Every structure is written in structure tokens, then in C-alpha cells.
């Protein structure tokens, strides 16, 4: 809730503004300009100090500072309990009234801590939720397949396996060649290459099914099982054994810092542990009676997996999601604490703690975001672990 409403609770722009007989909603409009005096050209909203601009009527947000805004009168770590100041137009400084106080102090450059806290909550949750969605997706698919098929259930005729590998190779090659020939780029490239791959796969499979009739020896038609489980275990164990933060740090050094790349990074490195849990659970489920019944009733593997097995995994998936999101938020906080991964001006909790490293006096920069992280993560972990016990 707080995360969603952060731009409304803590923002520089006034919510409602009546100036020159016109009612405007700068915080909602999305336009950076505001018509302050009728007839004059519109002014940049971020350049107006709304706190002390006389208007006919205005409603400022509860915390009238945006996270990137720097309050020049209260720079250099203003404490939440000592008096805060405001520089008037004639140059004299007066005490800031309680309405515009920085309730949780400021950072070195005069940014409001409470505002950063609220916006940082949004950053954390976005990263936690989306990276875990990605990780859960990868982990769920791979875990389901590995758990369900095991080492000996996915059987395929030898000739078909060869044919499939050959077809995959050839179709990828020709899709790339086609794109080079047409010199396309962007999303169109991906789309076209996928369609070409699919069409070619289908065509070549048809061709192979005709060709295979000429291979009459039983050698080619013997079923061999693909060791899905072994491949899966090998991949996940490498991912788990690598120290997570070291891995993320090394890749984050190469990527361009942004929220999206961080989400992708955390999502792609955090899927292994959920996948292993899901695999064990699927292995337990696949021997249960109802799966056999479904099999006997004529459902195919995909139906069994997604219609019968998946609903039974929902509780464990939810647990994994919650605890994993907690881990992702922790990783994000650690990364932004070192100053890697997120762009410099993104409001985040780790950045606040990083700021505190410069000044040991500024206790509010340490205590407040730490407690915020603690509460959020504790809630997530508690919710994730509660249902495990039942």
C-alpha cells in the first residue's frame, strides 16, 4: 500500500493547487509544468518551492519532499530532533514549522529521509517481486520437469533425438542467416527468428518422420531415456554452490546499472534453490495415486503436470516466493549499500545506510532504514515459513 501510494504521500508537487482561479492537480497530471500565474508561461513544478509560495488554495502531500529533492537549508545531516531551518527570500534563516519538518532527518545533501524511505520501499518491493517472479518461473518449470520425468521417464526414440538435435541446429542457423540477409533489428528480429525456428522445426520434423521409416534396424528405434534429473542437478548445484553475492557482484560490474538489469540478474541467479525444492516436492507427488488415476484416464504429461500436479504445489510455491523475495530484497540492499547495481539517484534503503557510512553521527540514517528492512523481511519470512509448519 505504502509502496503504491509513495508518490502521493511524499512528493514535491502539490496535490491540489488553486492559483489564479484555476484548479490544478500537479501531482496527478504527469506534466512537469504548472501554470502559476495566468497569462505567464508555465513554470517547472520542480523549481517552485511550494511550501512558501503563496497561492489561493493548496494541499501539499503529507511529506512535501520528493526523494531526489535537496533542501538547501537543511544539508549536512539535519537531525530529526534538533531544529531545522528555512532560508527566506531576504536571506534570513528561520525555524522550519512542524508542517514541513523532515521527520526523519536529512542526508548529507539535504534529501528527506522519510521520502526516500517510502520510495525505497517501492524500489525494494518491485525488485523483490519481479525478480522472484522470474526466478519462480524458471525454477517451477525446470523443477517440475526434473521432478516429474526423473532420470528414466522421458523416453525418446534414438533416431528422433538425433533428428531433433539436427533440426534445432539447422533451424537456428537459418533463422540467423535470414535475419542477417534482411538486416533487421530490435524486437522484430526476435519475433521473426522465433517464427522461422518454429516453422523450420516443424518442417524438418515432418521430413525426419518420413526419413526414419527407411531406418529399419531396431538400433535406431530403441527408446533411450534422457537423464533430465541428472542434468538438472548438475546445473542447480553449480548455481547453489557459487556464493550468491559474489556472482551477482561480478555480473553487476559488467551490466549497466538499472532496476531492470538488477531484476534480471537476481532472478537468473536465484532460481536454483526454489527449483530444487519444487523438484523434491514433485517427486513426492508423482507417485501419489491421483497422478496414476489421471494417467489411466488418458491425460497426457502436460495435462498431468499443469492441471494436476501444479495446483498441489501452490502452497510450497507461495512459501518459496515469499522467502525468495526476502532474499532478493536483502541482496538489493547489500548491492546498493556497496554502491553497485542501482543507478545513483534511485531511492533505496541500502543507499541510505551507505550514506550513513560517511557520518557516524547520523544515527537516523542507520536505524530507520535498517528497521524498515527488518520489518519488511520479517513479515515476508514469517509468512513464508508459517505455512511450512502446518
Amino acid at each position: 500500500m505504502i509502496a503504491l501510494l509513495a508518490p502521493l504521500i511524499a512528493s514535491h508537487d502539490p496535490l491540489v493547487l488553486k492559483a489564479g482561479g484555476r484548479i490544478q492537480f500537479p501531482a496527478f497530471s504527469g506534466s512537469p509544468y504548472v501554470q502559476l500565474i495566468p497569462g505567464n508561461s508555465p513554470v517547472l513544478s520542480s523549481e517552485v518551492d511550494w511550501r512558501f509560495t503563496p497561492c489561493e488554495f493548496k494541499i501539499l502531500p503529507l511529506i512535501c519532499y520528493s526523494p531526489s529533492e535537496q533542501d538547501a537549508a537543511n544539508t549536512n545531516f539535519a537531525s530529526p530532533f534538533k531544529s531545522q531551518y528555512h532560508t527566506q527570500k531576504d536571506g534570513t534563516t528561520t525555524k522550519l514549522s512542524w508542517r514541513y519538518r523532515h521527520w526523519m532527518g536529512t542526508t548529507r545533501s539535504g534529501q528527506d529521509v522519510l521520502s526516500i524511505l517510502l520510495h525505497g520501499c517501492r524500489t525494494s518491493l518491485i525488485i523483490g517481486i519481479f525478480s522472484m517472479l522470474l526466478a519462480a518461473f524458471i525454477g517451477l518449470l525446470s523443477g517440475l520437469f526434473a521432478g516429474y520425468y526423473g532420470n528414466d521417464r522421458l523416453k525418446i526414440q534414438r533416431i528422433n533425438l538425433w533428428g531433433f538435435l539436427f533440426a534445432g541446429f539447422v533451424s537456428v542457423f537459418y533463422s540467423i542467416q535470414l535475419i542477417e540477409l534482411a538486416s533487421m533489428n530490435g524486437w522484430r528480429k526476435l519475433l521473426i527468428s522465433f517464427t522461422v525456428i518454429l516453422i523450420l522445426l516443424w518442417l524438418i520434423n515432418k521430413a525426419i518422420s518420413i526419413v526414419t521409416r527407411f531406418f529399419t534396424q531396431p538400433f535406431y528405434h530403441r527408446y533411450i531415456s534422457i537423464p533430465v534429473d541428472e542434468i538438472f542437478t548438475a546445473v542447480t548445484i553449480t548455481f547453489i554452490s557459487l556464493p550468491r553475492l559474489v556472482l551477482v557482484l561480478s555480473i553487476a560490474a559488467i551490466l549497466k546499472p538499472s532496476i531492470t538489469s538488477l531484476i534480471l540478474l537476481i532472478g537468473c541467479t536465484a532460481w536454483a534453490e526454489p527449483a530444487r525444492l519444487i523438484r523434491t516436492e514433485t517427486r513426492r507427488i508423482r507417485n501419489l495415486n491421483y497422478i496414476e488415476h489421471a494417467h489411466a484416464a488418458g491425460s497426457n504429461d502436460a495435462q498431468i503436470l499443469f492441471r494436476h500436479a501444479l495446483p498441489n504445489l501452490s502452497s510450497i510455491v507461495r512459501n518459496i516466493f515469499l522467502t525468495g523475495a526476502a532474499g532478493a530484497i536483502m541482496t538489493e540492499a547489500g548491492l546498493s549499500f556497496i554502491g553497485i547495481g542501482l543507478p545513483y539517484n534511485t531511492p533505496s534503503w541500502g543507499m541510505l545506510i551507505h550514506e550513513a557510512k560517511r557520518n557516524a553521527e547520523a544515527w537516523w540514517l542507520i536505524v530507520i532504514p535498517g528497521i524498515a528492512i527488518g520489518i519488511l523481511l520479517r513479515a515476508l519470512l514469517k509468512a513464508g515459513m508459517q505455512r511450512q509448519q502446518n
Partner: protein
Amino acid sequence: MAPGDPVDRFVSLNTHDETFPTNEHQIDSTRAAWRHLLGLDLPIFYVSIQSMEDSKHEDSNSTVYYWIPTIQVHSDNQFHRWLFGDGQFTEGIVHGDFGKSYNTRQPVAKLLTGRMIWSVGLTLVAMALAFMISIPIALRAAQLRDKTFDRIIQSISLTLLSLPSFWIAILLLTLFANPNVLDWLPASGIGPLVPRPNRNFIQQFSDSLPYLILPTICYTLGTTAFLLRSIRDAASQELMSDYARTASAKGHDKRTILNRHVLRNLLPSLLTIAAFAFPAAISGAVLLEYIFGIPGMGSLLQEAVVGQDYPVLSAVFLISSFITLSGFAVCDLLIARLDPRIVKGGSL
């Protein structure tokens, strides 16, 4: 290759040099020369599927060649140089040479050896401490399952898990290493800035002991929280098993059951937990070393990331994953030694 190219750093570092070219074109050519010298212009890994037309250098006007795939493996790429050396800067990690750091121009292996001791040593000490603290408490909690003591321990470990360790570290620093609050302990480093002369090993150790108290506490806390939960879960499961019930039916008191029967059966799972806690501890060490200024692998990694020092980066990554993987291997061997059933593939 990367947004912040290390070559750009070289160029910007050398622009104050008088002999350095000022012409934009010349700078570009120096940049290219550096890139070539470091081998950064080479592809990372060169196995490509190409059409015949690309691989054939003579002009073939026939378009048929465009549609015939060939596989090319090229040995002159960054991966091969990293493995087998480029004959100039490094001999390749196959020969035990990690190359030279871009920033300090020192051999990476030399940088690493001094720093690995601190990281691994502190992590191991912290793990041992964490086990010593958490095993008795967790066993007690498992015994008193769902009683008040267990609840308190559970909530404490949950709180510790949800608080980031670097936050606890900074909090402790501001409390105990702050001249204005409690000036008990030094803030960062691993020993006095100017080492006192004529000190033997024990005296040196006692010199640097106050520097190590806070880091050890932080290292330990993070691991303890994890251990408390997992050991308590494992132990309470063991306590519910048949043999524990048999033992209590035989008339053993609870303490004997716990110490003699449950603890022995718990050993393999304890080892597994230790193996899984180790990578997490190394991850945590990165942040803690950065805070406390400990010259370990974590702070080395952080410097390498900030300074785009690729040889150091890859070496640290390689070493730390090697350490954790060997931890897994040792753990597996020990478990097999402890519990011969696993080797036989019997009941498990």
C-alpha cells in the same frame, strides 16, 4: 564489452602525461592499441556457426555458400588466453597464473594469497563459533518444542535473519567504535596502522585482537540465525522418530537421548547445513569486509568491481567458487564416512 571499459580508465589516467597524445584520433588509436594489448578486442569465446561464405576468404559469387553451415573454432579468444596465457602478461590459469591486475599492475596471485587468509580464516572462525553457540540452544529448543523458550528462540532467529548483517555491523560500529558514544574498539582495519616493532606472534595477535572483535561478532550473528533454525528443525524431526521414542521407552532420560542418540544421527545433516551455510557466509563476508576495512577477498572484489579489474574479478570468482565447491566435496566425503548407509545406497 562492458559499459565502463577498463581501457577508458587507462586513457583517463594517462591524460595528464605530457607525452600522451591530445589529438582525438590519436587517443582513439591508443585506446585501440591498449585494447589489443590486453586482448579485450578479441571475442570472449569463439565457437561460431557460420555460413561457408564467411569462412571462405576467396570470393565466391555463388549464393549457395551462404546457406551452407560450418562450425568454426578459433583458439585466439579471451577464454583461451585466460586459460592458456597470451605469452605476454599471463601464462594462463592452467599454469597457476591469474595474470596481472589492471590497476595495481601486480600479479593477481600475489594479491590474492595475502587476502585469502583473512577471508577464509574469519569465516571459518565465525562458523565454528556459530556452531558452538547454536547447537546447544537449538537442541534445547527442539526438546522444548512449541514451549516459550522455543518460541523466543524462533523469533530471535527470525529477527536476526531478517536484519541485514551489514546493518548490524554499522550499528555496532556507531555504538562501540564511535568517539562520541563508546570509544572501546577501533573502527576499521586489522591492526594498528603503524605496527609496533619487535613483537612476537602472540603479541602481534593481541595487538590486532580488538580490531577483530566486531567483525567476528557480525560474521557469527548472520550464520547463527540460519543455523538455529535449521538445526532446530532437523533435531525436532529426529526427536519424533522411532528410535528416539524407543530410547525414551527404554527409560533413558531426555538428556541421554539427546546427547547420545539424536546428536549422532544429527551429524550428517549438521555437515550438510554447514556446507550450505558456507557460501552464504562468504557472500556476507563481502559486505562485512567492505565495512570493517578488512583486506580480504570481499574488499578485493569490491575494489575490482569499482575499478573494472577483470583479471582480479575472474580470479576472485574462481577461487571463491572453488573454495565452496571443495567445501561441498569435503562435506560429502565426511558424510559418507559417518554414515556408511549412503555409500551402499541402502535405506536412503
